[in-house]
């Protein structure tokens, strides 16, 4: 390798990791600044900011679950249906008069079991691609949710059950006004994301999830039980969808048949915008959070400006294509073939 090569190399190598890691945050920051100038009175107001977080609360759980799946080079199309089924089970258990902690636990367990079914199907039934298994369960779980509820909404939960989605943390002791509260869902997002950041980056299991996405045969040759890790990943994805159901139950006070319809696509979009690669092995928890925020702010900002929701669809679609194109360019630059 001659000197010129090395120089070019080191510049790439120095820049790429930073761009990889923080490029998406830059985009998020630009969006916030632009929105602030477009809507100076409203956008960064306490009320609107907490609103954005409340709106993205359950989507952020689905996106985090799908993210882990995408890192293994898989896909989970069933998260919206898992959330709906978990929500319906919650609603039925609540209507039956179960104590609140039982009601609150049911969607988490239901979600975990749904995810486990996905994971076992992909590994034991040896489905050719997770797309097929989770496409199947997309229909199965939603159908089951409709079967057990009769396809009608079930409303009315206790405050304890609604706490995660609807609760407020009073900040008047800090000298703030009563309207300047902290939504519990915001704190929950922070806690869950920090836990999963640690999980993905600082534990062996997390490292193996990345390794499987990078080269499954290398992981296998290194003694990693690939199937076991995949089952764990899909189960956790289902579990997070269950948390999403619990949040949604709090926000809407109702279990309803259309809950989470097409939200699997939102979740995938957030991951892709956040820099997770469909080829697996690439992406960060922080990036997913940024992806969720970008979609949330885009929707919120366009709503504030009274832009038609049709335009929102066009814009979000364009951002997905742009984000993946950046991913393609990044692979060209970063990989020697």
């Amino acid at each position, binding site marked *: 390798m001659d000197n010129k090569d090395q120089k070019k190399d*080191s510049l790439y*190598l120095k820049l790429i990791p930073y761009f990889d890691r923080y490029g998406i945050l830059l985009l998020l920051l630009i969006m916030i600044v632009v929105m602030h100038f477009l809507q100076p009175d409203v956008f960064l107001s306490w009320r609107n900011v907490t609103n954005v977080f409340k709106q993205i609360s359950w989507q952020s759980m689905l996106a985090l679950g799908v993210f882990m799946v995408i890192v293994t080079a898989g896909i989970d199309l069933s998260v919206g249906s898992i959330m709906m089924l978990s929500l319906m089970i919650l609603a039925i258990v609540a209507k039956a008069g179960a104590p609140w902690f039982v009601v609150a636990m049911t969607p988490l367990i239901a979600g975990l079991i749904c995810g486990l079914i996905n994971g076992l199907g992909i590994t034991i039934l040896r489905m050719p691609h997770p797309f097929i298994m989770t496409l199947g369960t997309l229909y199965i779980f939603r159908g089951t949710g409709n079967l057990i509820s009769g396809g009608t909404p079930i409303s009315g939960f206790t405050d304890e059950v609604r706490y995660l989605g609807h609760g407020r943390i009073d900040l008047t002791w800090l000298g703030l006004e009563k309207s300047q509260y902290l939504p519990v869902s915001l704190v929950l997002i922070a806690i869950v994301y920090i836990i999963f950041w*640690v999980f993905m980056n*600082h*534990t*062996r299991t997390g*490292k*193996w999830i*990345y*390794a499987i*996405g*990078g*080269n499954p*045969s*290398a*992981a296998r*040759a*290194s*003694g*990693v039980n690939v199937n076991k890790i995949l089952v764990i990943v899909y189960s956790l994805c289902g579990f997070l969808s269950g948390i999403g159901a619990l949040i949604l139950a709090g926000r809407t006070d109702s279990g309803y048949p259309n809950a989470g319809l097409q939200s699997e696509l939102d979740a995938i979009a957030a991951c892709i915008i956040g820099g997770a690669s469909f080829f697996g*092995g*690439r992406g960060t928890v922080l990036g997913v959070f940024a992806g969720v925020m970008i979609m949330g702010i885009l929707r919120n900002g366009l709503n504030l400006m009274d832009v038609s929701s049709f335009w929102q669809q066009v814009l979000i679609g364009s951002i997905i294509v742009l984000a993946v194109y950046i991913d393609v360019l990044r692979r060209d630059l*970063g*990989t*020697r073939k």
Partner: protein
Amino acid sequence: MSSINQLLLEAKSVTKYFGTITALENVNLKIHAGECLGVVGDNGAGKTTLMKVLSGLYKPSSGSLYFDGKKEILESPKDSQELGLEMVYQDLALAGNLPIGENIFLGREPTKNLGFIKLLDFKKIKELTDAHLGKLKINVKSADQKVEELSGGQRQAVAIARSTAFNAKVVIMDEPTAALAIKEVGKVLDLINSLKKTGVGVIVISHRMDDIFAVCDRVMALFQGTNFAESELSKTSRDEVIGWIMGKK
């Protein structure tokens, strides 16, 4: 040189049938500490089958394996790994998205305890990686560099480093230079020489006479599943070895 060194691994009259096909017939192989054995042979001569028997992937139909003079029956590659035998695969079993250090320790990462949670010990991974790469004189910019940013030769070096990170006694390399640019071949051959100096026994399967004659102390040829010829490297020549591969003595 090989006569004074310790015998690490010996295969005695290994025979392997696949149905009615005889892939190996009464094949013997010995590898000593600090020695490099070249295994040559045409396609279908039984090289790969023999290596798979040594690593425990195939069970021999008859014959036996001795590790450190002790007879062992291998149930899986895990068993041979525990006895100190590692394979470096032709398709480089590395995860490109992970840094060098994490690849070397993949599946066996050092951890530290934080309360009841086990977290990865990145500092230790880096220290051990730097020390190990230094020992093998492998030059990379940093142990934190991702494997996909490396050249083919550097990747091969990392794969070899990986195989020897856990006190391997015998390393089997299947065509270690086949996928490399010519200027990188030398580096990998240097690496095999430094491995030998650390007392590891290296078995190299290769078609390239240049490789065999650069690093091996002994060369054995398989022909149609049998031991065809074997010699100290100093007592043979390229043309003779090429003749062996084609079944001519």
